[in-house]
């Protein structure tokens, strides 16, 4: 079986000492920032991206992925213990997890969350190994029109399904595409939007945009209102769940994993929607739905499995098609491009150690998290006592030094400051930054494929609608737009997101 051959190869890569160390650093940092409110995986990955420049591609991707799924573990820990979701995807876990903790069952809740996540992680890894190669093979046949349509669909879906006003999210995609235009045009050699700054002829660096829009803007937003200080100390005992707990939660884990795996692979939907949907499924299927919100273990097991499964399957379109479905995945693609690897279906064949090593490392990382998290729970909770006024200057330091180190040029730091300012104003007017970064990453590729497609068709735009695969993507994009404009769906979307806001 080729899958097993590939997976074994992946484990050989992932289990090398160097990669184990970076995986460990990743999940450790991830858990820490998952615990800390006010700093999420996006900000962390954005600020650490410049540092990965000095690493080889495989360890750097392994570390960044570790931060991503590690943050989900950390977020659920604080959701359960102190009713504080460190991360949006674990907001749903608060509902029943915290209630369980209040009933003195924090231990089993944490254990079930960890076991559910681990189970979902294993399934997710298998799914990537199973669906990745055929998808990449299929995508290798794509020509320029198919690629353009696929990217268009991905961007539309990501903008429309994401949080917030639809028009503004679509507009943010356009802003991202425009930022992507900055620099020298490959076809004509002309530099565009360079504002007379020599450094801009190479384009705006990916990390500069990511750090500015995510880290800097986010910090300023957090500083608008005074910090709340919370005092809590809690001891967790009796980690072991009972046989009954396991029996009750296993079906929920399976369903949660299925829900998460599905939403994770779609563009625009991710761990947060998965966790919420899984919670709704469990509540509907339960014999006695009144237990939910009062410490039902299924309400922890389902969503926790779902958000972790989604975190894993999100890598499928990212790695095989080169189309990121979320901002985090766009950052992962950015990390690839920093390393000089063009994202797309060829990654699997040109860098098999990266692809299979990364997949296997997710399994290894999930195992590390179970071992790391359960005994260290007390320590993580202590971290909540670190005041934000110590954290944010340190984050700014990472942003500044990281961007400076890319080209040893202060210009990148100045640009980052300008983009941070712009990012804050956009965020304040309730523009979502995620569609922007997706547009920014895909922009140059989109322009290139658009040009190539129309060159081949001699300027006839019908080429996008006469080739069947391209037509299918176009129809899908139109369909997603259409159903989301419908008032009923819009209302449903608002309902889903209102839970996270709470």
């Amino acid at each position, binding site marked *: 079986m080729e899958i097993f051959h590939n997976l074994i190869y992946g484990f050989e890569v992932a289990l090398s000492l160097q990669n184990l160390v970076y995986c460990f650093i990743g999940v450790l940092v991830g858990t820490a920032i998952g615990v800390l409110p006010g700093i999420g995986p996006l900000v962390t990955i954005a600020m650490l991206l410049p540092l990965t420049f000095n690493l080889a591609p495989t360890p750097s991707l392994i570390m960044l992925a570790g931060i991503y799924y590690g943050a989900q573990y950390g977020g659920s820990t604080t959701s359960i213990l102190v009713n504080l979701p460190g991360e949006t995807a674990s907001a749903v876990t608060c509902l029943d997890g915290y209630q369980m903790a209040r009933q003195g069952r924090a231990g089993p809740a944490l254990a079930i969350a960890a076991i559910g996540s681990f189970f979902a992680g294993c399934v997710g890894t298998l799914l990537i190994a199973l669906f990745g190669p055929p998808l990449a093979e299929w995508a290798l046949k794509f020509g320029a029109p198919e690629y353009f349509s696929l990217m268009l669909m991905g961007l539309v879906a990501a903008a429309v399904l994401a949080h917030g006003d639809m*028009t503004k999210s679509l*507009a943010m995609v*356009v802003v991202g595409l425009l930022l992507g*235009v900055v620099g020298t045009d490959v076809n*004509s050699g002309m530099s565009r939007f360079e504002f007379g700054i020599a450094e801009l002829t190479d384009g705006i660096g990916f990390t500069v945009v990511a750090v500015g829009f995510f880290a800097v803007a986010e910090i300023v*937003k957090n*500083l608008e209102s005074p910090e709340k200080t919370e005092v809590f100390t809690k001891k967790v005992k009796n980690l072991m769940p009972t046989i009954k707990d396991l029996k009750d939660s296993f079906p929920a884990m399976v369903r949660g994993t299925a829900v998460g795996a599905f939403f994770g692979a779609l563009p625009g939907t991710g761990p947060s929607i998965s966790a919420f949907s899984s919670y709704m499924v469990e509540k509907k299927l339960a014999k006695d739905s009144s237990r939910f919100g009062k410490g039902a273990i299924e309400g922890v097991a389902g969503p926790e499995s779902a958000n972790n499964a989604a975190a894993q399957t999100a890598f499928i379109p990212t790695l095989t098609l080169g189309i990121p479905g979320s901002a985090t995945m766009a950052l992962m693609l950015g990390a690839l491009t920093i390393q000089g690897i063009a994202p797309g279906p060829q990654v699997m064949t040109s860098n098999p150690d990266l692809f299979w090593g990364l997949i296997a490392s997710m399994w290894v990382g999930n195992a590390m998290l179970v071992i790391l998290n359960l005994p260290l729970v007390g320590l993580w909770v202590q971290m909540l006592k670190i005041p934000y006024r110590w954290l944010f200057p340190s984050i700014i330091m990472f942003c500044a030094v990281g961007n400076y180190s890319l080209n040893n040029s202060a210009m990148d730091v100045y640009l980052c400051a300008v983009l941070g300012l712009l990012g804050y104003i956009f965020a304040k007017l309730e523009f979502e930054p995620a569609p922007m970064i997706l547009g920014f990453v895909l922009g140059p590729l989109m322009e290139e494929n*658009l040009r190539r497609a129309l060159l081949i068709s001699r300027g006839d735009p019908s080429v996008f609608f006469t080739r069947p695969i391209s037509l299918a993507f176009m129809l899908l994009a139109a369909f997603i737009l259409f159903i989301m404009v419908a008032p009923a769906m819009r209302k449903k979307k608002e309902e889903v997101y209102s839970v996270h806001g709470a």
Partner: protein
Amino acid sequence: MKIGLHNNKDFLAGLLLIGVGAGAFYMALDYPFGSTRSMGPGYFPRILAGIAIAFGIVTLLKGVRMPELVKGRWGWKPLAMITLSLVVFGWVVERFGFVPALVALFFISALGGHEFRFKEVAILTVVMTIFAIAVFVVLLGLPYPLIQEF
């Protein structure tokens, strides 16, 4: 609070978009447009700028028809301090070295917070500067002079 145009969220959002679009369109006028068959460097940006303006108009009108307040207050002070700390870092690091740049960054950015306790910031600066030197200069081997002679 009464909603005027100055704190009308979508009105301002629309203005911002129209501004970005119009600016980009104006700059892109200098780049040859080409034809659909063989696009010039101005084709893609001008189309994008046009779409941005269109979205901007839609958003602006939405703001006029259904006014909503900008949520929360504007954090001008943290915004100014954080931006300034980055700019000063960039300026100082090229002239005076890594350590003075970090000291400036910590003190200026900390001024953007709600509480500024001199002793605390000083300790934070010392600890994080040592950490940064260990990670960036020693471990990653970045070639930055700690203090430049001047």
